C-alpha cells in the first residue's frame, strides 16, 4: 500500500496544477474545476489501489480529466461565452483574478479560448500552456500526431480570428 501511496503522491504533486488548469479552461468555473479535478484524482487513486497498471500517468490523468469534462457537458450543455460578458466570467473572489490583476489581453484570451471548438482548445492548451510534446498530446487525445499538429495550428488561427472580432466589438 505504501507503493500506491508514494505513486499517487508523486502523480498528484506533479499534475494537480496542470489538471486544474486544463479543466478550468474548459468549464470556466473555479468551483467546478475544483470538483472535477478532485474527482479525476480520486479515480486515479482508485485505479492504483485496485492494482491497475498505469504506464503513462500523465496521459492517464489527462484522459480521466477529459472524460469527466465530457460527462459534465452531457449533463450541462456548453454555452458559448459572450465576448461582452468577459468581466462577469470569473468569480470576483477568485484567486485567479487577483493574480491577473486586470490584464485585458489575458482576459480576452481566456474568453476566446473558452469559445473554441473543444478539440482545438484542448490541443492549444496542452501544447502552449502545458508545454506537452505532440506525441504526448496524441496519446491523451487518442489521435495521430499529424492530427494534433493540425488541431494546434487551426486552434491558433481560430483564436486570431476571434480576437480580431473581439477587438471590433
Amino acid at each position, binding site marked *: *500500500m*505504501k507503493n500506491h*501511496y508514494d505513486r*499517487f*503522491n508523486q502523480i*498528484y504533486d506533479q499534475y*494537480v*496544477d496542470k489538471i*486544474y*488548469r486544463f479543466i*478550468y*479552461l474548459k468549464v470556466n468555473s473555479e468551483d467546478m*474545476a*475544483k470538483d472535477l*479535478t*478532485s474527482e479525476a*484524482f*480520486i479515480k486515479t*487513486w482508485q485505479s492504483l489501489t485496485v492494482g491497475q497498471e498505469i504506464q503513462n500517468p500523465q496521459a492517464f490523468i489527462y484522459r480521466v480529466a477529459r472524460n469527466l469534462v465530457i460527462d459534465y457537458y452531457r449533463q450541462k450543455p456548453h454555452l458559448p461565452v459572450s465576448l461582452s460578458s468577459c468581466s462577469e466570467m470569473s468569480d470576483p473572489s477568485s*484567486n*485567479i483574478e487577483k*493574480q*491577473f490583476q486586470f*490584464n485585458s*489581453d*489575458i482576459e*480576452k*484570451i*481566456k474568453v476566446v*479560448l473558452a469559445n473554441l471548438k473543444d478539440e482545438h482548445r484542448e490541443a*492549444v492548451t496542452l501544447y*502552449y*500552456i502545458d508545454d506537452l510534446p505532440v506525441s504526448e498530446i496524441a496519446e491523451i487525445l487518442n489521435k495521430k500526431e499529424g492530427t494534433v499538429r493540425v488541431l494546434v495550428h487551426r486552434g*491558433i488561427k481560430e*483564436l*486570431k480570428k476571434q*480576437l*480580431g472580432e473581439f*477587438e471590433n466589438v
Partner: protein
Amino acid sequence: MDEAKIIQNLKELKQIKPNKEWAILTKKEILGEEYKESRFSTIVSTFRFILQPKVLAPAVLTLLVGLFLFVQGSLPGDSLHSVKKIAEMGQETVAPNKTEFYLGIAEKRAQELNEIVAANQVEKLSPAIKEYQDSLKKAAQSIAENSKAPEETILLAQKVNKIKGTTEKLEKDLNIEIKEIKELKENILACLRGDIEATKTEMAVLAKREIESLRNNNSLTEEQQAALAEAEALFEAENYQGALGKIILLSYPREAEQE
C-alpha cells in the same frame, strides 16, 4: 493581435493554479487514513535514519567536537562557560587519572583568572575566584582519596608546586587569600611522607632480613664480619639505606673493589 502575441498571452495562462491549501486538503481527503499513516511513518523513518549509529554517532561527534572547540575561549561569568564545564564533565568520565585531571582543571581555572585580572574584567572576578577555589578543593580531595604509586605522587607534587606558585601570585595581585591551596599542599605532602615512610619500612624489612641471614652465615671472613657489624649499627640508627649499602659491599667485595 499577431500569432506571437497570442502564444505569449496563452503562456501567461500558466498562472492559473488552484489554491495551495485546497490542493493539500484535497490530497488529504482522497488519501484519508493513508495520508496520516504515511506522514507519521515519514517522521518515524526520518528519526530512525538519524538514530542509526552510523549516522548519529559521527553527527553527534562532529557537533560535540565543534561545540567543545568553540567554547574553549569562554571565561567564568560568560554565558558559554557553563557549556565548557559540561564538556569538562564529559572529559572527566573518561580521564584515566582523575587526580591529574582535576589538577589540570585547577591550572585552567588559574589561567582564566589570570586572563580576567589582566583584562581588568572586574565583573567576572568573583565567579572566577569561586571556580578556582572549587577546582583546588576538588583536586585536594582527589589526592586524599586516591592511592598512587610513589613515582606518580612525585609528578603530582610537581603540578601542585606549579599551582602553588600561580596561586601565590594571584593572592598578591588580588590581595586575597585562597585557603584551598593550603589543603592541596598538605594533602600532597601527606602522600609524599606516606611514600617515604613506606619506602623506609620496605628498606628496614629488607635490611633486617639480610642482616639475620648474614648472622647465621659461619663462613664470613673477618672483613665481612666487620662490615656486618657496621650494617647492624646503621640499622639500629634507622639508617636503613646505609645498612643495605654495607650489606651489598659485604656480599660482593670483589665487584666493590673494582668499582
